[in-house]
C-alpha cells in the first residue's frame, strides 16, 4: 500500500508542471469557432498525453494507514488513525469532547 502513496505523490508533481499545457490544449478542442481540422489535430494530441496529468487522478490518502477512504483534509489522516492520535493526545489543539 505504500506504493500507492508514492504514486499519488508523482501524479501531483506532474500535474503541477503540466497543468497549463493540459488546459490550453483542452480549451482549443472545445472552441466551436475554430475549423474542425485544427480541433481534430489537437484532439489527437490530447489523447496522446498521459492520463496522469489530469487533476481527476489525484486522490487524498492517509499518511499513516495509506487508505483512501474517509481521509480528513485538515490532518491528512484516516478516521481510524485520527481517533488513535486524538485518544493519546498526540495532536496539538485537538481534544475529545461530546455535547
Amino acid at each position: 500500500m505504500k506504493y500507492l502513496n508514492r504514486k499519488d505523490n508523482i501524479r501531483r508533481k506532474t500535474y503541477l508542471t503540466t497543468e497549463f499545457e493540459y488546459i490550453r490544449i483542452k480549451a482549443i478542442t472545445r472552441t466551436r469557432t475554430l475549423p474542425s481540422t485544427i480541433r481534430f489535430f489537437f484532439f489527437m494530441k490530447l489523447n496522446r498525453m498521459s492520463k496522469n496529468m489530469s487533476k481527476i487522478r489525484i486522490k487524498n490518502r492517509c499518511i499513516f494507514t495509506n487508505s483512501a477512504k474517509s481521509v480528513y483534509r485538515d490532518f491528512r489522516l484516516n478516521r481510524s488513525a485520527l481517533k488513535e492520535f486524538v485518544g493519546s493526545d498526540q495532536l496539538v489543539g485537538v481534544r475529545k469532547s461530546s455535547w
Partner: protein
Amino acid sequence: MVIVSQSLGLINMAYKERRRIVIIKRTKLTLKILQLFYEEGLIRGYSLTKDLKNIFIFLKYYENKPLIKGFKLFSNARKKVYVSSNLLFKYIISKGLFLLSTDRYGLIFSARLSRKNHNLTKKIGGQLLFKLDV
C-alpha cells in the same frame, strides 16, 4: 504529560515529512526525555530557543530512513499505567524499547534497566510511559 505526548506526535509528523528540525515546548520532563534520547543516540542533538520557552530538536536519519518509526503511548494525562517488578522483567522488557519512570533510577530506558538488574535481585517497578519502534 499532555505536552510530552503532543511533542511525540510532532516528532512523528516531522519524520513523515522528512524534516531536519522540530520545535517543541520546554518543560522539565521533555528536557529529561531528550537528554535520554541524546545519550542513546536517537537524535542528533537539541538546543533552546532565544526566549528559552521552546526547544529545537535535530532529527537523525540513517540511509534516508528515520531512526524512530513511531511511538505507542501507554500512559496519558487521564490514565497512568504502572507495572510491577514481576510483570516488567518477565514479560515486558523482551518486547521492545520502553521508557519508564521508576522509583529507584528515575526516568530510564528498559534496555538500561535490564543491564542494571541482570540477576533479578532488585525489585524495580514504575510508570510505563511509551514504547519506541526502532
